[in-house]
């Protein structure tokens, strides 16, 4: 029931879960992964059925811990299909006294009502079960040369071939997820820890060559040394996905038929959503919560937004939203919150109202008393014109133009390849061109 990550080659994701499978791949690629082992999905199924550890698991656990030679470990879930954030993770677990309880807690978190709901909505069988990954703990909060973050091999918003992501210095992974702290753009890692940065960039390239796809990783830097904690292939949606597919074909990682096959009709529809044109002064980035682009003057309270709206479009910028902000949300052309996430109250209300919205713009501080928003070292008084993109989460200064799929060179090339596959070059809608090509793949 327990397998060392070092010896996991050949084990399927159905048995050890997607996360452990990715860690085994990383180790085989020679990349730095903390030593550890995985308790496979059979143990979870037995636990869910009998409500106790299956016979033999305790003995296997003791043996695996003996081989691991680590005092403190992380204990994470990892099912065969991704269920992000739905199950428990326990960090910094004392191996001698706390490990059994931590494993039990992670196994039991399979059946929290929230996880059950997630599976119902995504058609995931309830008896699938999760693996549990136990690894030597690496500390992103060890010193000021430590940190934790997430890195995409290519920008998931545009598909551009530059690493993208963020890093939180002096903190552990759970601080990133909780939103308690403000992460920095990934580029700061290049300045502060050039060796770890170099290793990270090389690792991303290596992983791309293995999967023949864009990817992203979760990582920790401990005293200047890089460790990878998770990997996932895939890169962006809509126009970003199109650009990644075309670039990968140009780079020789995949052929053109594969590139065409990776783009779905849904990617084409999503590519039509208006986005901010590149090249504007980006004040901050958050997470897109309701797609669309909106331009307007900053208002920092709901009352001000409701009043200012008579004079033209307003973007309401708040730390969080409450029902007391509803009149301002209704009056605004777009909504920004510095906290929250894509399933916050603010995000739900923005979608209900059909307003472009960016949430978790953690670099912004709203100062309602002073009537301004601070972004890094800059002070933006109420009334300053900004543009927000509810798909990619960008917030830029001024009136930014938008782009749509029309004129996208990557899309034009991909569809040209699609016509080559179908042998039909007649004028017709993009989705029909793609469908005809897919029928021949």
């Amino acid at each position, binding site marked *: 029931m327990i397998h060392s990550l070092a010896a996991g080659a050949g084990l399927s994701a159905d048995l050890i879960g997607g996360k452990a499978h990715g860690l085994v791949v990383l180790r085989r690629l020679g990349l730095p992964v903390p030593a550890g082992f995985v308790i496979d999905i059979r143990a979870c199924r037995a636990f869910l059925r009998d409500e106790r550890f299956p016979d033999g698991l305790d003995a296997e656990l003791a043996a695996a811990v003996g081989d691991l030679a680590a005092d403190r470990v992380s204990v994470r879930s990892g099912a065969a299909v991704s269920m992000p954030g739905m199950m428990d993770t326990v960090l910094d677990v004392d191996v001698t006294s706390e490990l059994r309880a931590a494993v039990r807690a992670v196994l039991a978190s399979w059946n929290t*009502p*929230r996880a059950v709901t997630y599976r119902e909505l995504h058609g995931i069988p309830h008896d699938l079960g999760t693996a549990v990954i136990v690894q030597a703990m690496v500390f992103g909060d060890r010193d000021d040369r430590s940190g934790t973050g997430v890195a995409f091999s290519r920008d998931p918003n545009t598909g551009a071939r530059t690493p993208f992501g963020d890093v939180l210095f002096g903190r552990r992974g759970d601080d990133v997820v909780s939103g308690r702290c403000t992460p920095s753009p990934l580029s700061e890692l290049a300045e502060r820890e050039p060796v770890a940065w170099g290793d990270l960039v090389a690792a991303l390239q290596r992983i791309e060559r293995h999967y023949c796809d864009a990817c992203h990783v979760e990582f920790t830097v401990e005293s200047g040394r890089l460790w990878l904690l998770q990997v996932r292939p895939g890169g962006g949606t809509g126009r970003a996905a199109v650009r990644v597919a075309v670039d990968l074909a140009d780079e020789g990682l995949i052929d053109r038929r594969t590139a065409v096959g990776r783009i*779905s009709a*849904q990617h084409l529809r999503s590519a039509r959503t208006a986005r901010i044109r590149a090249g504007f002064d980006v004040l901050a980035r958050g997470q897109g919560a309701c797609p669309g682009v909106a331009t307007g003057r900053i208002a920092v309270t709901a009352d001000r937004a409701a009043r200012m*709206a008579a004079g033209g479009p307003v973007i309401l910028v708040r730390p969080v939203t409450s*029902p*007391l902000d509803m*009149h301002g949300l209704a009056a605004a052309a777009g909504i920004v919150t510095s906290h929250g996430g894509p399933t916050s109250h603010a995000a*739900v209300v923005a*979608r209900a109202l059909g307003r472009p919205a960016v949430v978790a713009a953690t670099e912004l501080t709203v100062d309602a008393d002073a009537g301004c928003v601070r972004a890094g070292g800059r002070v933006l008084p109420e009334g300053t014109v900004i543009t927000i993109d509810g798909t990619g989460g960008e917030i830029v200064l001024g009136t930014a133009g938008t782009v749509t799929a029309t004129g996208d060179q990557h899309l034009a090339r991909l569809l040209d390849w699609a016509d080559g596959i179908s042998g039909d070059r007649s004028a017709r809608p993009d989705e029909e061109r793609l469908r005809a090509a897919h029928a021949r793949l």
Partner: protein
Amino acid sequence: MTGADDFVVLHVLRCIGFAGLPRVADAAGLPEAEVESQLIDLAVAGWVTRTPGEFGGWGLTEAGRAEDARRIAGELDATGARGAVTAAYDEFLVLNPELLDLCSAWQMRSVQGVAVPNDHSDPAYDARVLDRFAALDRRADGVCTDLSAALPRFRRYRVRLTAALDRARSGALEHLADSTTSYHAVWFQLHEDLLATLGLPRR
């Protein structure tokens, strides 16, 4: 100006924000004429104000907000309900992320790996979300019951949540997450009420 009903109306405005008379009356569970008369009294006392315009309505003044906070603190001390409300709030916080997941799933769904607006053209998907909503609503029953036992003014939330869910189940799809009287809107106000009652900041 010290009756129980005017406190109900004052506190409703503290929890729902700017609203027209029908919404205030619905949230309070009182006839519109009675609520209007109380709003006028509250306005004379300087605690509420009516803002004209497209996004206007009845709302609290700063003084009204302070008065509400003073009365709520007094109510909590007088009834000794702080422990019970705190326990119910902890239960609420377990349900809240799931409720927000469900609202998001109702509004957006993943199609071929891309998050797209749910156009409600797939009855099987909508039925799955509604089923889970109903299951969450049953679990929320405990929170509502405990709160109502601690402070009877919380009773109205159970009535309003049930009404929203019933309307959605009978085909008025906007009453789950999208209208001003939707399940999410009522839940959001319950969240605000719990924070206000316990004197906690929103995070």
